[in-house]
């Protein structure tokens, strides 16, 4: 710690920080633009000038940039010095010389860092009388709007996009006072993290295009904490609503999970909530006639009919869902009984998840959070396509490769926040990152070494690494010299690292890669290292569901086909994405009654006899467990219209209707609010015991008040509904959370899950986050970052996994079809958002050029592929990174039902007669 003197007051701060971060950390207001807590300082904007004095007796002092000055012991500065103030005001005045008169029509207005800083410095009138510089804008695709006139040349966008997120297609062009931040020509920003430009840009050059289409100011958004449902990482988001429409998603800082950034799928995938395909009314199909569509009826009547059928049922099967909340799944489990509950995932996924779970439960190596991944200094990725399956983790790894070279900067005594100097010292050096997979993406350019092979070969590489590291770990006998050398290099890098990280997952569908990853981590642990493991899972609550237990979907299919049960309850699950079409059709045909609860119409809900409209994540409260095993609470943002309510409430109502009278209600039927749901969930599985500590309970009050979801500037309270009624109905009651659908309530420091959105007087932009932290970049005050449900207890590794697969052999007539997930297209919910849908690629099949030659297929031809009873039209892409003998099928919505990996004779399955060139 260092003692610094700011305006004659003494403060204790961390000496590793710069002066700007230190001042913001102690709560002082100092304007800045180019500095960003996650990206360090470059001293480009000259806005954070303060006056530094040699000691207490120095009266003269000199102006320094706070962001470029270390907060070393005894530093004596003044923020309020008249000369420093005048300097800062003149910097803003220069910036405003060319800033357009746009604020009323600018989407950044009201949460603009430039507005805040202008007000803070006191600049009011434009003295400059000459014309303003203008620029032409670019079309940057469906996510981002571009308005170059507003630019203040702080360089944050290119520093984030190129240096932090590894993007290539955004750059700065031009010279002198005519700089241009954009692409070389119009076109979609390709980087998967482009959405962060909206928050990184201190003014309105880059704004959210999805928000633009239903624009609302920040002060009019009713907001609450959400957890992103679009992948397994569980990034924290703030969802904002107005007039019953979910308006936008912004990043929500969580020091253990997503930090300052989100991926584009998470940021722009929310619009499915406003989709026309939402189920809004409870529907009942006329008695046992599957040809007729369901009709809306009164909810009590539909529940009565459903309960009657449940009572008469020979047996009930409850199919849960990895994208439904933990509470909803526990409710279903309680309604149908644990032995009748299946998690609603296919057999392969079920096996993969139980292996992952046993590795995390019984092994000595803990799971890594995204923040751990960012801090790790050697990484091995086995068979996961991170950029497409868990983009935020890929972004963390792009930072992890800087960890080891950073030590060079430390040796040179360059502080880590001095970004330009650090990059100069580091140059192109990167720490060890080994990526083994079967498809090349731009992420591989950041890897020390890459390996492309079939999943079995990737697993063999993993086993070989484990065998090289650990003396007792099983080694792979029949390795090629090339692979042995590679394994040796990986093993060396991992053993030399302080915080090695091994990543595997379910993406390739390979069991062996998971076991190999566990072996590597355990071998490192045996050597006395502190390794961490990270498994990428398919969906937002996959691990929670795996903890809950239950058999695979096959069990459900069997019990219906064998006549053990005749009634099915499907909870937020499209079974056609999880099993072959024919099997699911047969399953629904055999079932006497199908009760479906979901938010969007899909093929499964079309089979429902009773269809109940479920609330999405922004309309309900619940808990998700991310791939790390971290349970996090998401809160309802707004009250939806129609019959929509939480899935667990529907299941409770079903349970109540089913049990004849009010006497002797048990389980889910007794639930009154989320607290009951949470306490029953905590009792369901031993691992869930602490789930109540994830967030404050329903009864939590501060000064006897709830926390308002609406900002205190929320407008239109007396006219929003006045066209319907002038009587101003009271705001909806929230029985589940300590939050209120109101402007009124406690405004002050609250536990982090209850913060509606980041705002502080004078700090309207998302940079207000500084005011919620004790130390810039550190955890929030009263942070509740979620509870890790699985901590390693074993000190020794359990027995090694020994099932080392044999090398992959390509067969002359059969090809191994592998899944290629897509960041835009492979996730069920985000696919239904218009902006994401625009980015979904056409369905394609990747082949090694030699396989293309064998099958007589050229690049970019369209073929028809008969697979598992369905014919798909796919474009062929010849990709040298695909292992020979395999073919990758891109999992976009058109091919969502295929079960992969699978062995298929492509020479039979591909209809070569109908080849045609794609334009």
């Amino acid at each position, binding site marked *: 710690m260092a003692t610094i003197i700011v305006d004659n007051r003494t403060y204790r701060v961390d000496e590793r920080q710069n002066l700007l971060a230190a001042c913001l950390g102690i709560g002082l207001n100092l304007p800045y633009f180019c500095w960003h807590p996650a990206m360090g300082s470059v001293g480009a904007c000259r806005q954070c000038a303060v006056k530094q004095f040699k000691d207490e007796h120095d009266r003269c002092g000199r102006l320094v940039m706070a962001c470029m000055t270390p907060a070393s012991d005894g530093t004596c500065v003044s923020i309020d010095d008249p000369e420093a103030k005048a300097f800062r005001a003149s910097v803003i005045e220069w910036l405003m010389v060319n800033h357009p008169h746009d*604020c009323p029509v600018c989407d950044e207005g009201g949460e603009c860092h430039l507005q805040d800083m202008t007000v803070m410095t006191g600049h009011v009138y434009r003295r400059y009388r000459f*014309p*303003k510089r203008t620029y032409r804008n670019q079309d940057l695709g469906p996510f981002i709007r571009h308005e170059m006139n507003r630019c203040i040349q702080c360089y944050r966008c290119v520093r984030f996009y190129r240096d932090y997120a590894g993007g290539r297609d955004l750059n700065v062009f031009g010279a002198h006072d005519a700089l241009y931040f954009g692409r070389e020509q119009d076109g979609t920003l390709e980087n998967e993290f482009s959405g962060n430009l909206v928050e990184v840009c201190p003014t309105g050059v880059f704004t959210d295009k999805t928000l633009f289409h239903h624009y609302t100011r920040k002060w009019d958004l009713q907001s609450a904490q959400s957890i992103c449902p679009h992948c397994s990482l569980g990034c924290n988001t703030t969802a904002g609503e107005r007039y019953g429409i979910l308006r936008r998603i912004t990043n929500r800082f969580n020091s253990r999970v997503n930090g300052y950034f989100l991926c584009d799928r998470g940021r722009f995938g929310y619009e499915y909530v406003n989709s026309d395909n939402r189920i809004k009314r409870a529907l009942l199909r006329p008695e046992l006639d599957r040809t007729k569509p369901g009709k809306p009826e009164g909810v009590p009547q539909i529940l009565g009919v459903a309960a009657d059928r449940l009572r008469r049922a020979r047996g009930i099967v409850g199919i849960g869902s990895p994208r439904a909340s933990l509470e909803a799944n526990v409710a279903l489990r309680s309604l149908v009984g644990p032995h009748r509950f299946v998690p609603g995932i296919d057999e392969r996924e079920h096996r993969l998840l139980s292996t992952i779970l046993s590795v995390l439960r019984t092994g000595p190596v803990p799971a890594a959070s995204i923040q751990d991944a960012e801090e790790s200094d050697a990484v091995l990725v086995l068979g996961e396509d991170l950029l497409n399956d868990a983009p935020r983790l890929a972004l963390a790894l792009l930072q992890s490769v800087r960890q080891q070279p950073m030590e060079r900067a430390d040796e040179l005594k360059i502080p880590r926040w001095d970004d330009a100097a650090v990059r100069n010292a580091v140059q192109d050096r990167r720490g060890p990152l080994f990526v083994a997979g079967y498809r090349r993406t731009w992420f591989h350019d950041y890897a020390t070494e890459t390996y492309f092979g079939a999943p079995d070969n990737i697993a063999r590489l993993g086993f070989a690494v484990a065998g090289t590291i650990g003396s007792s770990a099983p080694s792979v006998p029949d390795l090629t010299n090339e692979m042995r050398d590679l394994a040796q290099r990986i093993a060396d890098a991992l053993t030399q690292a302080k915080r090695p990280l091994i990543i595997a997952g379910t993406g390739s569908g390979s069991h062996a890669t998971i076991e190999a990853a566990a072996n590597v981590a355990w071998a490192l642990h045996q050597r006395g290292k502190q390794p961490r493991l990270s498994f990428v899972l398919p969906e937002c609550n996959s691990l929670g569901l795996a903890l809950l237990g239950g058999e695979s979907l096959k069990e459900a299919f069997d019990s219906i086909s064998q006549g053990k049960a005749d009634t099915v309850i499907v909870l937020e699950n499209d079974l056609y994405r999880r099993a072959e079409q024919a099997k699911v059709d047969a399953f629904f045909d055999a079932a006497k009654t199908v009760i479906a609860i979901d938010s969007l119409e899909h093929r499964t809900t079309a089979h429902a006899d009773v269809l109940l409209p479920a609330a999405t994540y922004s309309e309900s409260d619940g808990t998700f467990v991310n791939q790390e095993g971290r349970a996090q609470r998401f809160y309802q943002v707004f009250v939806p219209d129609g019959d929509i309510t939480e899935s667990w409430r529907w299941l409770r109502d079903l349970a109540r209707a089913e049990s004849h009278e009010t006497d002797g209600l048990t389980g889910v039927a007794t639930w009154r609010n989320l607290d009951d749901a949470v306490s029953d969930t905590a009792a369901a599985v031993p691992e869930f015991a602490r789930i109540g500590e994830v967030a404050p309970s329903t009864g939590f009050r501060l000064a006897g008040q709830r926390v308002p979801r609406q900002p205190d500037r929320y*407008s239109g309270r007396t006219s929003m509904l006045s066209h319907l009624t002038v009587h101003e109905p009271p705001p909806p009651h929230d029985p589940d959370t300590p939050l209120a659908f109101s402007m009124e309530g406690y405004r002050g420091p609250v536990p982090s899950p209850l913060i509606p959105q980041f705002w502080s007087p004078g700090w309207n932009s998302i940079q207000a986050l500084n005011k919620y932290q004790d130390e810039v970049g550190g955890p929030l005050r009263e942070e509740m970052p979620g509870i890790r449900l699985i901590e390693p207890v074993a000190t020794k590794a359990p027995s090694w996994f020994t099932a080392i697969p044999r090398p992959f052999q390509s067969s002359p007539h059969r090809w191994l079809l592998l899944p290629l997930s897509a960041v835009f297209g492979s996730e069920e919910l985000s696919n239904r958002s218009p902006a994401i849908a625009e980015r979904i690629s056409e369905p394609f099949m990747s082949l090694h050029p030699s396989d293309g030659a064998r099958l007589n297929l050229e690049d970019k031809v369209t073929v028809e592929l008969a697979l598992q009873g369905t014919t798909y039209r796919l474009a062929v892409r010849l990709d040298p990174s695909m292992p020979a003998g395999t073919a990758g099928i891109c999992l976009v919505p058109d091919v969502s039902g295929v079960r992969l990996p699978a062995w298929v004779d492509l020479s039979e399955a591909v209809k070569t007669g109908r080849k045609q060139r794609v334009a």
Partner: protein
Amino acid sequence: MMKTWRYIRDLVLGLWIVFKRTFTKPVTVQYPEERPYLPPRWRGRIVLTRDPDGEERCVACYLCAVACPVDCIALQATEDPTAHERRYPEFFRINFSRCIYCGYCEDACPTYAIQLVPDFEQSEYARRNMVYEKEDLLISGTGKYHGYNFYRVAGVNIRDKDKGQAEHELPPVDVRSLMP
């Protein structure tokens, strides 16, 4: 004794003032037959005005709504592709049964769109008739400010005004030129 005298004196004084007023001109007027003079800047009913080109002035910036102390203004922004590719209010609603005619909305308006006019006669039998939608608020003139057109000074381009064509603007920068 002194007290009683004081009472009598006050009584007589009061009666004298009443008597004097009998011969002065009354302040009240016989409304509605007779109408008072209201200065043009008197703050009564709220209208939405048009710019000199006849387009809606409102750009749906929400500043009036947030300035309103009784929160009686609700609107939604939209981009209308058929009308100049610029921002408009999709709906604009003022609940006059809540309005206190403070004029903060007019103060906040950056485009002179929302103006208060000297009309206060808004009596209705039903409260719902006090809820005005955009059609009810929009007038065909420019109101108190004749010359102002926000889009002629703003940096954004609209259909009939390209970049660099606004007042006090240079033509767009040619990024590929290195000339000083």
